[in-house]
């Protein structure tokens, strides 16, 4: 049974803008899937359909094998919100309580859990995003990066099976960006949480995403693992995206300078390995490297 199964879904806004046109989108349980697209490609519309904020005009959406909608047997709003959690792009849209603790407790209390269980979930969620020391703080005293992590904790406290994030690294500094992606990787790999991430930031994806969907003007242009996606450069350009910077460098060296690079490295680790093969061994200083951890692209 798939975690998310979208078949032939279309959506047109009231002003006539066609945001999605007959798209298929599938995510298996425990996968880390990225929806990659430029501004206006339909990423946010797709996300809002998955969480039931918008209703599809055509097509079917199923979460964990059960459809969203008003037909018999479909998920109720309460069931849906327990299965799918959405982290908004702007944390201010999502953090509405006065303190971190009250905000994280909002969802569990709505589930009518005992206060002991509410507190346990709040502690676990804040610990998962390394925000336990922020527990008693007022929301408006938090930095942007802290607000982002607390907004993620508020959703984690609902213990959703599928976690959806809209541009989770937007507005973060490089350290905050790396921290956020590591958190998501940990949730996906250790907690087996299904993660769907909408972004137009390409550099991090090869390190984290199992599969990538490329969206352009409401259609899926391509779907597959990152090495497959980024070797279709024309498609990437058509989607108004770009290659990861390290891949672009390697591509330019291969194309313009004739450097014999095999395939197209997508991460610093891959690029480094390839370059080390090309550099004569006597030119490499003994006793240095390997061992650069691939934390950042």
């Amino acid at each position, binding site marked *: 049974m798939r975690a998310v199964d979208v078949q032939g879904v279309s959506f047109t806004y009231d002003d006539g803008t066609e945001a999605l046109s007959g798209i298929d989108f599938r995510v298996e349980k425990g996968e880390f899937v990225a929806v990659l697209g430029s501004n206006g490609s339909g990423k946010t519309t797709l996300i809002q359909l998955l969480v039931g904020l918008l209703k599809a005009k055509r097509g079917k959406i199923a979460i964990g094998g059960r459809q969203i909608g008003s037909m018999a047997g479909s998920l109720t709003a309460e069931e849906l919100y327990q299965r799918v*959690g959405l982290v*908004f792009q702007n944390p201010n849209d999502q953090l*509405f309580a006065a303190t971190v603790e009250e905000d994280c*407790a909002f969802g569990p209390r709505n589930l009518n859990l005992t206060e002991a269980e509410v507190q346990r979930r709040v502690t676990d969620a804040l610990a998962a995003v390394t925000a336990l020391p922020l527990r008693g703080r007022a929301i408006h005293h938090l930095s942007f990066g802290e607000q982002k992590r607390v907004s993620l904790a508020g959703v984690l406290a609902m213990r959703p099976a599928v976690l959806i994030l809209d541009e989770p690294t937007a507005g973060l500094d490089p350290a905050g960006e790396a921290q956020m992606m590591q958190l998501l990787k940990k949730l996906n790999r250790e907690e087996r949480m299904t993660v769907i991430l909408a972004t137009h930031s390409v550099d991090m994806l090869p390190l984290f995403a199992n599969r990538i969907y490329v969206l352009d003007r409401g259609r899926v242009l391509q779907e597959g693992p990152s090495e497959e996606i980024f070797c279709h450069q024309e498609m990437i350009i058509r989607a108004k995206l770009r290659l990861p910077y390290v891949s672009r460098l390697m591509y330019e060296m291969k194309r313009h300078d004739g450097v014999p690079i095999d395939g197209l490295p997508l991460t610093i680790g891959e690029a480094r390995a390839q370059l080390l093969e090309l550099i004569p061994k006597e030119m490499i200083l003994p006793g240095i490297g390997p061992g650069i951890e691939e934390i950042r692209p």
Partner: protein
Amino acid sequence: MMFDLFSDIFTYRDNALTRIDPRVKLLVAVAALVAVVTSARPILPLAVFVLCLGTVAALRVPAKLVALRLAAPLSTIAVLVVIQTFVTGTTPLFTLTFAGWTLTAKAEGLRLGLLLGARVLGALSIVLLLGIATPAHRIFQALRGFRISKDWVEIAILMYRYIFVLMDRAGDLAAAQRLRLGYTARGRALASFTTLAGATIVHSFEQAGRTHDAMRLRGYRGTMPFGPLPALGRRDRSLIALSVILIAAAYGFCEWGANG
């Protein structure tokens, strides 16, 4: 400046006042407000004003911030005293002629104006001290403890939370206008300000929509759930009783004791 006006950083300091249960502080504040507002002489309100300001100074709150928070109400008090002086009463004090108008100040009006001004000042200083010694969310907790309508408390929480967001947004918009010379002439400044006010209202509507979506996704069904509050301890109850007795005694002394 706007952020200073609403800033609650002093409420997060650790001192004797911030450690008291917010329900105790709220009850004592209400008792003091009732005493101040019903007093027939300005002594008690002025004494409360001096006491509260002294406490605020002891908590090392910058005088500039206190002056900023008192500035608007003080101007209202000044207007109140002037209006009462010239409108109420019969015993003339002095006469002013202004642009062909003759205005006579009266003793009864001045006395009433000063009494009303003293009451406002006293009440204001109580609220000022409460706001400096208690974070807003703890006041909301206390309100819930007193079974104030959940809807009202919920609206107050959301208003408090989004004041800062909208202030930030309005600040950014105002800076953008200023950088493009939006406030260089009086007429232009007025136009810029009205645009800013309109844009902030539109932002607040959009923000409300997005926040409601986020709340729905976390199971919101029309009422914000609140956690339980611990019962008031014996120490808290004693503190309430002692404070109310002291306020009543001060009220009795200032209102009747000085006469008799």
